[in-house]
């Protein structure tokens, strides 16, 4: 990396992406980068994350508490985002889903509003 004349080491694509973190909820050891090279910040098995970035003021956060997945948001491009909420300080973050995320949990979060509706949904069938 330090030698710019070496074409092989100057490219970021060739740097070795290793590193793991332990999930704060299920304890799974997860590699920091997914198979397609994108950086992941939540556990692919239970989708829980950890509060390490302060999104209100920027920079790192000293909270470091667990963040639970609470909602699925859809971008204009059609991609899904997972919205996490910190269990300690209630901050919300949104992160793109990875391809190897647990699809069962993703689908459960996506359909949970319709499963627990506060008003009857039958009237919308006629619309």
């Amino acid at each position, binding site marked *: 990396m330090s030698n710019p004349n070496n074409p092989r080491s100057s490219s970021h694509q060739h740097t070795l992406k290793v590193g793991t973190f332990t999930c704060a*909820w*299920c*304890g799974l050891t997860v590699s920091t980068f997914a198979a397609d090279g994108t950086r992941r910040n939540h556990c692919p098995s*239970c989708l829980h994350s950890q509060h390490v970035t302060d*999104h*209100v003021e920027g920079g790192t956060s000293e909270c470091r508490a667990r963040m639970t997945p*609470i*909602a*699925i*948001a*859809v971008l204009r491009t*059609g*991609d*899904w985002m997972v*919205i996490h*909420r910190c269990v300690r300080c209630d*901050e*919300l*973050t*949104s992160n793109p889903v990875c391809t190897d995320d647990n*699809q*069962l949990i*993703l*689908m459960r*979060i*996506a*359909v*949970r*509003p*319709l499963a*627990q*509706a*506060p*008003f009857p*949904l039958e009237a*919308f069938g006629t*619309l």
Partner: protein
Amino acid sequence: MPRRKLPRERNRLRRPQRHKDVLHTQGGHRGNAFRCVGCRLEVSPDAPGTAHRNHCPTCLTSLHVDHRVPGDRASGCRGRMEALSLSVRQDGEWMIIHHCLSCGELSANRIAGDDNALALVRLAVRPLRDTTMASRTLLTL
């Protein structure tokens, strides 16, 4: 992995609403009616079912005025916040996740009793409307 509570136990304890200790009079802002930035509807602050109305009941648009604590009116952004998605609390309450269009901040608020049901359901089915992602998810199950 820690076990979750049974759903029956979960329903029994209803969470009380957050105590309203924020300074609606001290900060100098109006604690009363507001005009929606999305549809210009004049919205009164008393809503059925909640004491913390922060969005228009018709178009669900909100305004980014709170910083960290809900109701502190400490944010200088004042951007428009669009409803992004819905989440469900453990006790079955729906929460709207708002997303600030100017700074990207997220916030959550409970739905009120007079919120537009059609707008809420449109928001709820939004992850399932796009068939490519939803069917790919279902196929891998």
